């Protein structure tokens, strides 16, 4: 009897746990659902229905408007050129910062020299700083460099301020690799670059993934650097999206806003779906630094 009661109680508790977990899942999913369903509605449907109502006809008008005709201020070319801007900025910035970070991590773990540990600390402290404290001088320096191209400016800035993270990822991995591996390779006659490319890089694939994914999401999602260091047609997707949503001219087209927001979210969502494992690992690893 007591056993029976106990197991009933246990069942109830488990049911409660699942109920809470499912509710939480719904709360995380709801905004995505709202965004998607709104983007497929017409403006009339939006006014007639509510947030959770399904679109009557799956209209792709808002999507095509968001992609190619929506207006951000005076420009009316949709998001496509800004999407391209973000890609053009992201790809080189991610690749460069990852490669350089890998080299840095390799040096800071396998080729330590006097002062290298101190430099690593200096780099780590950098990760704590709010970027607001460096953007004024950065804008000045970019002006002096006469680097007019927005994409070029953003690549430079993202590389500089991404290096701390990529370096951290690789260093933290390479300190777990026995240093004897590098010693053995040196005795075999391999030099600095050969050891890196032939021995360490091939075993770093998971770290490379973490790094690529982390940098991709960071750079794609950035807004501060985008709004400060780019201008006009050279702006990245996040800035354009915010402009679109906050444009006060004409009728507010919520469906277009939502379609544009999803377009802006798609690349990183895709990355998350493909490499979620690495994404989480990057977050928790990046977390160690704060």
């Amino acid at each position, binding site marked *: 009897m007591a056993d029976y009661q106990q197991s009933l109680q246990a069942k109830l508790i*488990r049911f409660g*746990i699942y109920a*809470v*977990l499912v509710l*939480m*899942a719904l709360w*995380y999913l*709801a*905004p995505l659902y*709202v965004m998607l369903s709104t983007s497929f509605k017409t403006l009339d449907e*939006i*006014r007639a229905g*509510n*947030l959770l109502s399904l679109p009557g006809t799956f209209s792709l008008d808002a999507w095509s408007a968001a992609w190619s005709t929506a207006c951000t201020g005076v420009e009316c070319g949709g998001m496509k050129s800004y999407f391209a801007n973000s890609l053009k900025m992201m790809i080189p910035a991610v690749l460069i910062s990852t490669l350089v970070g890998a080299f840095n991590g390799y*040096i800071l773990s396998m*080729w330590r020299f006097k002062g290298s540990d101190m*430099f690593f600390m*200096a780099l780590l*402290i950098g990760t*704590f*700083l*709010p970027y*607001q*404290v*460096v953007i*004024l*001088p950065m*804008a*000045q320096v970019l002006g002096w460099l006469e680097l007019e191209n927005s994409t070029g400016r953003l690549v430079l800035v993202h*590389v500089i301020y991404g*290096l701390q993270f990529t370096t951290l990822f690789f260093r933290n991995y390479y300190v777990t690799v026995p240093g004897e591996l590098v010693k053995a390779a*040196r005795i075999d006659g391999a*030099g*600095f670059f050969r050891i890196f490319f032939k021995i360490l890089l091939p075993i770093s694939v998971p770290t490379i993934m973490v790094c690529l994914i982390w940098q991709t*999401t960071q750079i794609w*999602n*950035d*807004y*501060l650097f985008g*709004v400060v260091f780019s201008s006009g047609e050279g702006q990245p997707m*996040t800035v354009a*999206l*915010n402009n679109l*949503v906050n444009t006060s001219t004409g009728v507010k087209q*919520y469906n277009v*806003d*939502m379609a*544009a*927001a*999803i377009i*802006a*979210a798609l690349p990183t*969502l895709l990355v998350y779906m493909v490499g*979620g494992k690495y*994404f989480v690992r990057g*977050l*928790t690893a990046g*977390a*160690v630094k*704060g």
Partner: protein
Amino acid sequence: MTASRQGAPGFSLSRLADVILPKLVLAPTVLACLVGFYVFIGWTAWLSFTESRMLPRYEWAGLVQYVELFGNDRWWGAMQNLGVFGGLFILVSLTLGLLMAVLLDQKIRFEGAIRTLYLYPMALSFIVTGTAWKWILNPGLGLEKLAHDWGFTGVTFDWIINPDFAIYTVVIAGVWQSSGFVMALFLAGLRGVDDSIIKAAQMDGASLPTIYTRIIIPSLRPVFLSAFMILAHIAVKSFDLVMALTGGGPGFATDLPSIFMYQHGFTRGQLGLGAASAMMMLFTACAVVMPLLYSELRRERRG
């Protein structure tokens, strides 16, 4: 016979390479880090002691900008908002994250899928999050209308345009985005707890809730610390979320130091004031993080 060989290579090129190459390859990063952070911080500090407006000027002007900043109601409003937003954001995220982690730790079926759902907002840009929530919280067509459609006609939900409540909408959106991540941190921490400790406690007859509150959660102290620091960091530099959600409004109801800094430094031609506010943000970040870090380091050193 030995003379010629003994002297052979006084040095070897590859040895030189071993010494120089690492430093050479690291040099650009050293430069980027030193200039990008440390020189620029000094530079910002210097600007904050000048009367720079549209253009930077470098004549020493003492504390004028700080005097102006501390006399500026908007600044104090922004700091107050940061306090409210930061405090609630951190508190709710930690609570929710810990709760979800503990629940997920109960050998849940589909754990992987659920975790994936909880964490996806972290992959989004704050701009996207802000845009989505701005629409959801839309006073005419958003949640309020949903409530009306469901028959709760008396409900008004206009927080996003209500100066007294707008800051809480920022908290909601922020928590939505970041709590899943806190959950992931705690879950990793829970998985790292030594199983034998739990088994020993069970032998002693401790119940599951007791084991959690008395043994497991206290042992997660380092996770609390790092989660706190990350959340505090997100809060202090939080900018994009508010820009997309409320633009700092209505009025200055959701203004934050980061927005204050951006507007004075970049759109209002008040470089000096912008720099002073940036320095204050730096101090705020340090003030939050340093004591914690310090106490933790001391604990570790004491063993």
